């Protein structure tokens, strides 16, 4: 979207000017505050807000400046690359990022590292195994989702799958993990896989079409927040909340509400706060030349109506 590009270019230009007017003009041997750029896949979802909260918390503890910027749409790969180029030119000390596309973002990550900027990936990595990643084990999480859904429908029946963006590492991993998980339940058949494109309206439309094309659909797994919001809405509108079980990733407000209403039976909740927090902590270590583990699994928690009010779940969701 050209217009948006112009607006964000102007915005970044202004930000750079303001940034340059700051500490960089100081000549004194005062310790310059480290500057870390945190780039999510999109700024739009609850999930990423929690990542930001974690990053900010770690930033405060370490005394570093956190700059949060990302595309408004998880599919805007070119926009994310442009943002990273700007951060490289602005000579930040480290970048903590979630890649919109694992292949497309690999060259720019290598360029950043060549410019001596430390790069830590969170949630979605790139196709370079030497880049550390702090993320949910999405394959494992999706396997857990498959098992949860299969048990909810009594081990028999047809299910539907709603991943988000084909080509996005997390979407592909959840799709694969779900299909792997279903292998342990031979009575469960995957009837339809339709993408939500990380848009709630599309998620709702594909759910409606899935329900139409498979009238005996017993369960649906929505792989992320917008797909879940759309799927829950479609199921409620058709009054199929008792017949069709819904398991979803993430825990946006409307997903939790749907859980309380009984439209969603289980939420596979990640720990985005921890991703942002550990990502920034790892970045600081990397800047100081310390060794950083290549993989940190931030884990998933299955949240149902039964454990919704336990203190652990409350603090997990509270962020």
């Amino acid at each position, binding site marked *: 979207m050209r*217009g948006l590009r112009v607006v964000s270019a102007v915005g970044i230009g202004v930000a750079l000017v303001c940034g340059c007017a700051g500490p960089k003009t100081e000549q004194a041997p005062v310790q310059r505050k480290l500057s870390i750029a945190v780039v999510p896949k999109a700024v739009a979802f*609850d999930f990423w807000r929690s990542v930001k909260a974690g990053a900010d918390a770690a930033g405060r503890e370490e005394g570093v400046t956190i700059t949060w910027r990302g595309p408004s749409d998880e599919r805007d790969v070119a926009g994310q690359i442009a943002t990273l180029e700007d951060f490289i030119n602005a000579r930040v000390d480290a970048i903590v990022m979630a890649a919109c596309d694992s292949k497309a973002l690999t060259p720019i990550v290598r360029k950043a590292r060549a410019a001596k900027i430390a790069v830590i990936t969170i949630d979605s990595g790139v196709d370079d195994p030497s880049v550390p990643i702090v993320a949910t084990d999405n394959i494992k999480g999706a396997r857990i989702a498959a098992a949860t859904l299969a048990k909810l429908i009594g081990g028999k029946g047809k299910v539907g799958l709603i991943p988000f963006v084909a080509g996005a590492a997390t979407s592909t991993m959840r799709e694969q993990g779900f299909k792997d998980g279903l292998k342990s339940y031979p009575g469960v058949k995957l009837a*339809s896989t339709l*993408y939500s494109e990380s848009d709630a*309206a599309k998620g709702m*439309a594909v759910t409606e*079409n899935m329900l139409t*094309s498979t009238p005996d659909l017993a369960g649906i797994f929505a792989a992320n927040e917008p797909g879940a919001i759309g799927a829950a*809405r479609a199921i409620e509108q058709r009054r199929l909340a008792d017949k069709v079980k819904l398991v979803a990733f993430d825990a946006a407000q409307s997903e939790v509400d749907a859980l309380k209403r009984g439209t969603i039976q289980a939420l596979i909740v990640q720990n985005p706060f921890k991703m942002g927090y550990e990502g920034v902590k790892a970045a600081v270590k990397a800047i100081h030349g310390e060794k950083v583990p290549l993989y940190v699994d931030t884990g998933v928690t299955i949240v149902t109506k039964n454990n919704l009010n336990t203190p652990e779940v409350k603090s997990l969701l509270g962020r």
Partner: protein
Amino acid sequence: MTRNEDTSAAIRGTAVTWRRLGEWLRPLAALLIMGIALSRASPYFLTGSNLASVAVQTSAVAILAVAETLVIVGGHIDLSVGSVLALCGVAAALLMSKGAGIAVSCSAGLALGLAVGVLSGGLIAFGRMPSFIVTLGMMGVARGAALIITGGVNVFGVPDRFAAFATARWAAIPVPALLAGAVAVAAHVVLTRTSLGRTIYAIGGNAEAARLSGIPVMRVVTILFAISGLLSALAGLALTSRLSIGQPTAGAGYELDAIAAAVIGGASLMGGQGTVPGTLIGAAIMGVLRNGCDLLRVPVFWQQVAIGVIIIGAVFLDQFRRRR
């Protein structure tokens, strides 16, 4: 007017009406063929529930497509409709979530769309700027504004009573489809039966000639974009009701769907040509295509190829017919 002038005007009017009718018979035939093919391929296509779903899924784009038809017939283009949809949708959602009444919030959303449209129209008409550029810029401004006022996140807390509109039915027809239908009927009446409509066709056909014959071109162009902004806002409200959240990223790409619907339905991007019924058929063709691909489990990427092919095909056939 003398009697002879009355008659020839009436005859010309009838001839024009019949010609316009012919313009959209072709897309209608295409839609019917698609429908028949799909009902053979999938037993679920021709069910009441599925057709109602398709109607609702297409209703937001249909409203935008009607707006686009008016603008395109007038010889311009509006690329900002998708972004204005999002902006007004989230503005209304924000107001409602803070406790403002539904009527107040919706009026504010519509007023915002109208204001954006007047601004665009003013720049295009009085500032003499190309509509492509102005609405391209407005697309970014509106999208950015939607993200700014929401902080980039979805707006929850839309009252259930408002969300109920999108699920309600009146005489078994879903309300969003009725809304799109009402908008289409109103626009069709304006285009075919009012002097404003004749003026729009005239401006689209030859803006300079229209101006020289005394038509207030600048005022009419501003009105065109004001209507477009208003309808985009209406579509935004409809989508917010359907999703029961305000999504600042909503409507992305809808402007291209709306333009495609108008073009498939017979509108010419040169202006002066196009009908609302044709556009509705164009929108229906795209909606049915998407629905069919989902029902038949055709990969989503082939959907995009198919829609592109249909757009090219529609314009090609139109050019071919015209050259003869």
